[in-house]
């Protein structure tokens, strides 16, 4: 009997080759083997979670959405309305990627119901990209999510998935890698192209620190989801065009872990340095306290 567990991208690729299956199917078979969940049930539950992702986008596009702190006030709506034909980005799908990812993460900042992928702070990337591509990839959104989860599983095993342990590279970076791989599969990429897309995405997010203003998950998180959603699309685009990452995904993950371990704790979700300690951030909270 095939053992569908994998610890690395190399092992996952070998499994895909041996079984002649895409990553999404291998990870669904792993789920069945380890947790007794039938492939159909896994797909159904994935679909249900995608619906939550879509509701995040919808919620975040409302013009009255705002966070308790006031730092997030319908940024996606503002962009969506002012850029309806695009100033710099002329491709409507890419504009939607940007708007939807910011919307989805605004929903998180504003106390809405979300699905972490892999974390709440980075939950807008997969949601935003898939909602924007749904028209093009249709039911393959489910395959994309499954493939994304496989990348997250490897990252969890080889490194970590939290800003507190590894800085933002471990949240936004991993999320972008997951999304790039998922999108690559949904657009017809081979398993090696999916993992290559993941490598490209994470490699170019290495070193990202976690320094959110006020210890809230808003600045820089909300807009960072927008930036890295586009980043994930760029990684998938390059990979599907045959551009390889010189450093393979497993090694990039190892570097991410090492970089995270070297990172000062002040830059790992403690709010003790970086953007959190800027004059503007301090001033905002001084003012907020005064205003009660």
């Amino acid at each position, binding site marked *: 009997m095939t053992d569908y567990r994998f610890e690395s991208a190399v092992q996952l690729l070998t499994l895909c080759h041996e079984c002649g299956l895409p990553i999404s199917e291998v990870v669904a078979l792993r789920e069945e083997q380890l947790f007794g969940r039938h492939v159909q049930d896994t797909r159904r539950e994935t679909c249900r979670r995608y619906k939550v992702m879509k509701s995040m986008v919808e919620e975040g596009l409302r013009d009255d959405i705002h966070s308790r702190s006031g730092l997030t006030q319908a940024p996606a709506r503002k962009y969506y309305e002012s850029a309806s034909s695009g100033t710099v980005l002329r491709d409507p799908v890419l504009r939607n990627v940007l708007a939807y990812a910011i919307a989805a993460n605004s929903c*998180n900042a504003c106390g809405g119901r*979300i699905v972490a992928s892999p974390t709440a702070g980075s*939950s807008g990337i997969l949601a935003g990209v898939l909602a924007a591509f749904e028209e093009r990839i249709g039911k393959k959104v489910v395959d994309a999510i499954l493939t994304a*989860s496989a990348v997250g599983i490897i990252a*969890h095993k080889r490194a970590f998935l939290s800003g507190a*342990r590894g800085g933002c590279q471990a949240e936004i970076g991993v999320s972008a890698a*997951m999304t790039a791989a998922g999108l690559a599969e949904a657009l017809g990429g081979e398993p090696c192209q999916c993992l290559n897309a993941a490598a490209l995405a994470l490699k170019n997010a290495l070193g990202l620190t976690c320094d959110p203003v006020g210890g809230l998950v*808003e600045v820089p998180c909300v807009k960072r989801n927008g930036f890295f959603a586009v980043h994930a699309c760029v990684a998938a685009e390059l990979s599907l065009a045959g551009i390889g990452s010189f450093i393979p995904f497993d090694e990039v993950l190892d570097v991410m872990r090492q970089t995270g371990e070297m990172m000062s704790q002040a830059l*790992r979700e403690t709010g*003790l340095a970086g953007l959190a300690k800027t004059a503007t951030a301090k001033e905002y909270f001084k003012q907020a306290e005064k205003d009660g």
Partner: protein
Amino acid sequence: MEPSIFDIIGPVMVGPSSSHTAACVRIGRCVRSILGAVPTKATVHFGGSFATTYRGHGSDRAMAAGLLGMGPDDPAINESLEAARQRGLELQIVADATLPGQLPVRVIVEHGDKRLDVLAESLGGGMIAIRRINDVQVDLQGEGFTVLVEHVDHPGVIAHACGVIGETGINIGSTTCRRSEKGGKALLVLELDQPVGEAVLGKLASLEDVTGVALLAPMAEASDTGV
């Protein structure tokens, strides 16, 4: 631990942080299950980056919600501190730099004459581990249905407890037993393939030298109320 697809694409939750909010709801919920009731008093020690960001990340709200029995995706988490006050749960928060681990939380709860002291850790992405229950080291990551049998370290208790489960025909996937010291407090952890009912838990509780029994549901299912 082998993560499931839905540990990575999940939990479905109310934010803003999976490691600082959803994980705390789960830890609180676990503590409540072990205690067997909503505590009247809870002292929560936040370590690691919790110490400086628990307010912004809503970890205090999340802990209150979990202790009240809410799941990570319950919109009522946003108002849980108020709910705790109304339900007579006195919550005290302490920033504590002395706790071991990357993202540790220590929860001390009381209900009647019962007192429970749990050390847990947030592992990222909403996943958690329970590291210590009272004086006994454990490693619970909430994968399956878990029965905890607290007992005095005397011969025969483990056999009797396993016997009670055996009679139900439910398979025990794994067992671990740790004790604080020889003849001291011990904790038997049984991971089951299916849940057991109240009657079985009652039977376990009535065994000689057993001082407490609790059933923990798998984290992912217990939390995502929509599943």
